[in-house]
């Protein structure tokens, strides 16, 4: 469903992503791994239209996404859960969810149904419905970010280091929630620094190093591969 070919992304004069090719099949949950600075986040930002200068090809069900602004890409069915969450910090939880549904332009009844759906997924958010997003704890904010991304019923969800700074138990809840979302048919591409966590929940994985795909394979096979560790932690830790 998502096919990326020959993707190059630059920040100013520095090219960060080189000739990346990857694929997410319908209903799949795929991991994109790599050390810090490997270009994972940049790749995701290019997919969702947030990167400044990218070339190559990013196709969703045959439609070219590259070149579209971010606010158009969400309407194509690609939701981005960015690093740092990017919530509307001063708006309430409910208002964040309402805006999450903005691109659908649907009626109030449908919106309420969606809100109900994500509240069922994250009951904690229901309790916090009227609280300003910025005043919640990190875990709750991350839940809200996931919930907001789900408000459009995306075909593909891009998740960027959702576990960052969260307690292990919250990370577990988060991945459980993502699996539930995946089970309802949404394809997911996760960028993750917790290798084991990511591999445990995905079917396939790509590993980036210095902006290039260096390893690609089945998640369970990669879990014990020294190749992966080498790419991830640097050669000193491959052994």
């Amino acid at each position, binding site marked *: 469903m998502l096919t990326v070919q020959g993707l190059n992304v630059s920040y100013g004069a*520095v090219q960060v992503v080189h000739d990346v090719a990857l694929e997410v099949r319908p209903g799949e949950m795929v991991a994109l791994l790599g*050390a*810090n*600075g490997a270009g994972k986040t940049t790749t995701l930002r290019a997919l*969702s*239209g*947030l990167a400044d200068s990218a070339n190559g090809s990013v196709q969703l069900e045959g439609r070219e996404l590259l070149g579209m*602004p*971010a*606010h*158009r890409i*969400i*309407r194509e069915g690609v939701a*981005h859960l*960015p*690093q740092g969450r*990017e*919530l*509307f*910090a*001063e*708006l309430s939880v409910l*208002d964040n969810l*309402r*805006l*999450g549904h*903005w*691109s659908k332009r649907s009626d109030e009844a449908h919106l309420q149904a969606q809100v109900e759906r994500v509240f069922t997924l994250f009951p904690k958010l229901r309790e916090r419905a009227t609280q300003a997003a*910025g*005043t*919640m704890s*990190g875990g*709750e*904010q991350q839940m809200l970010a996931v919930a*907001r*991304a789900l*408000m*459009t019923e995306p075909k593909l969800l891009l998740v960027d*280091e959702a*576990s*960052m*700074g*969260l*307690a292990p138990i919250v990370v577990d809840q988060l991945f459980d929630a993502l699996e539930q979302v995946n089970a309802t048919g949404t394809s997911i591409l996760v960028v*993750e*620094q*917790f*290798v*084991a*966590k*990511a*591999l445990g929940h995905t079917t396939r994985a790509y590993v980036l190093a210095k902006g290039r795909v260096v390893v690609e394979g089945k998640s369970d096979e990669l*879990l014990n591969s020294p190749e*992966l*560790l080498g790419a*991830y*932690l*640097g050669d*000193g*830790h491959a052994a």
Partner: protein
Amino acid sequence: MTRLLLFTFLSIPLIGAYILFSLGIVVIYRASRVLNLAHGAMAMTPAYVYYTLAKHGTPRLLAILLAVAFGALLGVVVEALFVRRLRRQGPTAQTVGTVAVTGLLIALIAKIYGTSPIQAPTVFPHGQVTIAGASVAYGSIGLLAIGLIAAVGLLAFFRYTQIGLALRGAAQNRTAASIVGINPDLAASGAWALGGATAALAGVLLAAVTNLNPYTLSLEVLPAFVAALIGGLESLTGAILGAVIAGLAFGVVPLLSQVPVIGSPLRLSGAPQLVLTLLALGVMFSRGRRLSAADTDTSTINTATTQMSRRAPLRPMTLVLLALVLAWPWLVPFSVLGSSLLAVEFAVVALSLVVLSGWVGQISLAQATFVGIGALVTGLVARGLGIGFPFDVIVGVLAAAGAATLLGAVALRVRGLYLAVATLIFAWMGDAFLFPSPWLGASGGSSTIPNQRIGHPGGLVSIDMTSRRVVFLIFVAIISVVVLSLSNLRDTRVGRAFFAIRGSEIAAASLGVHVTRYKLYAFALAGALAGLGGGMVIIDQRTVVPSQFFFTVSLQYLAIAVVGGLSSLGGGVAAGVLFAGLNELFFRVSALSGWLDLVSASLLAVVLLLYPGGLAAAIAGLRRAADRIAGLTTGRLPRPGERLRAAAGAVTTRVRQVMPQPGPATAGDWLDTLHDKPATHTVTAEVPTQPVVAEPITGDRLDRPAALFATGVTVKFGGLTAVSDASLDVREGEIVGLIGPNGAGKTTLFNAVLGLNEPSAGAIKLFGADITGQPAHQRAGMGVARTFQVLQLFSGLSVFDNVLMGTHLHHQGTLFGGLVGTPVTVESERRCRERVANVLELLKLSDIANESVTDLPFGTLRLVELGRALATGGRLLMLDEAASGLNDIETARLVDVVRSIRTLGVSVLLIEHDMQMVSAACDHVFVMDRGEVIAAGTPEQVSADARVREAYLGASPAPSSERRKPRRRAPRTPELTGVR
């Protein structure tokens, strides 16, 4: 009293207009972070549209609707043409963009309709009702009612509609808006349309109550800026409240003056303005806060690249120009001589803005007010005290500088555009209160210096100032001294601190620059120069009237400075000459009469949008062309080594005439110069003659004194605890790493050490001294130096000048010393330049000393920033992800440099996520995860630690029994750390 208040409330039609205005200002500010100075003009223009439509028989209601629609359209156009296009250059440039819009609209309407007041068709029927025993016009009540209705409507729109919610969201977070599918540009257009529509509505209704005049109607908006500021600039309800307060002040304050006890002091014109100004300044004063990590780059107008340390040899052209200027008074007719004097006056005021806006990045909308203070005080001293030139002018200069300093002292507590608002409010108060005051001017505020008071023969200074030729030569002498002094200042400590602040306040503070103090210096200097301009104006004209110093004139001065290129002295002078020339031209050529304002405003718009370098860039281009031609004829390439010397010393001003000696070759000597101004500590370690890679530290680290000692640091942001009870220490001479996965809180802890956030608990000691709670620049003074993850070099400057910025703490130069080039400053400058040469030598950057940092590869720039940190002489060097973005070779070079730094007695704390780099460089490592320090020890110890592996990998991919190990808390005090 209640009835009185009720009456007052109703009797003030302006409250309704202020509500509409301040709501629009706040809506636009929230959406675009721009202070829309064109708001008044955007109200005035639709009012003329309404007038024209109504005059041609359009039904009133339809005319109003069309005018409001026109206002909305105008808002959209202004946003698209100016605000959006200037976004990359930041809010200051965008705000100047709205100044250009103001000029264009006023000039356009004045050209079409003339400037005499026009009676606009009424909206509400004539007549009045009697309330509380006094009569109130229908029009007033109508305006108030519509203002209130619009306010309620807007609040409801933002609170209860999806589109209102989307606009609020987009105003808060552009990225978030994009990813949920809101087009942030469209949202900004929407906000400007709303702002434009409300402004138009207010303009139409106001015009119907008062009169149509392009100037006065545009200025009716000024109290609304006060209102918006009182409300905090961000809050709609605050804006409404502020508008009511502002409106009431106009009703109540004059009433109070009729109370016998208070008596005459308040029975001055402009008393409400004075009261509101004091209120607004009070609000600002109470909102002051410290620099924090969230204050990223100060955005400034992107002007001609700052020229520093560039060779500007005396050219034949310069001599010709000088001769021409000296002969000028005898070459031109007397009438042209008048414009020549005007050129100098313009130039001096433009230079005041070059210092304040061009060098420091602060915007002032009150330069004309300072000019007026200078002129009127000069007049007062000459006329009243009988003191002649130059002492009258000196007093005038001091008065203007004092006023500017006072204003700055209040306004500088807040950052960003608040300062611009403060100057705007000050100008407004000056127009209404200060200048009409009989104690400052004479009858009606005008001020005259009698001929005999103006330096007549036999006076203290015996110059015949009645001759305009003499006056011209004196003016030329004055501006020459000003330009030379300012170029001196630019090239020493204070000038560099100015540039550093403009480039990045955080970087400036990290180099030890007391940001607020230097901004205040700039304010005082700009006020003094404007006051000097004022003194010149009154000497030139003999009689001045207050309208010469009104707010609109401030906007003109700003236009002159921007057209000049804003940061260049030559450009400022050239722009003064250009505008005086245009004045003369449009006055002489009758076919052009009436077009001057439109041409000036267009010039500003063109320079802003298409040619941001202004005249300075044009002049620089001409120079380069001349150099190329000269180079072709002499045909000579620079010899090796020449470039460094050129960078270090090739100078024209007195300060830079000193050539630095070739630096000492050994690291030991180098260290001596580096630490020529030791703080509380001196480094006594034996230093090898060559910088070498140090051996790992042996023995117990805890036996060494602590360079940095942080205990129990907790930092919270809103509901998030970013760092929780974290402790770490760096021993003298040690290289310590702080590692952890993304989001672990490394940067937050780092910022806590640097004073860039406010920990809710914990203590931080630096070389034994408690620095908890001290501001960032003071910590720099105590020996902390740093680099930035996202490079904070000063773009456009050379490598040498960038590193030179790091010598701030060692330079003995003062503001005065820099201006006149005192021996202390010159000697200090020489030593600092020598020090920079040494640092560059150590880092092997000497060959590229003269290259602009804009053209260098990233890896080299990291070293340049490291060099700048070293130049501060700090004994604790903090590197923030210094290896990020570097390739393997560059990283290896960096590791070498870091390890060699230690041999100089400098301790290092580096934040890294790259384990390899940490293993190669560090003696000791602290590991953070989720805000806590979870492990400490040598690199080998921590990388073998199961918790560390878990933190990095989520769980160890090896045997699964390692997973989910219960997390132990980190030891509370580093002394007891015992992972080993």
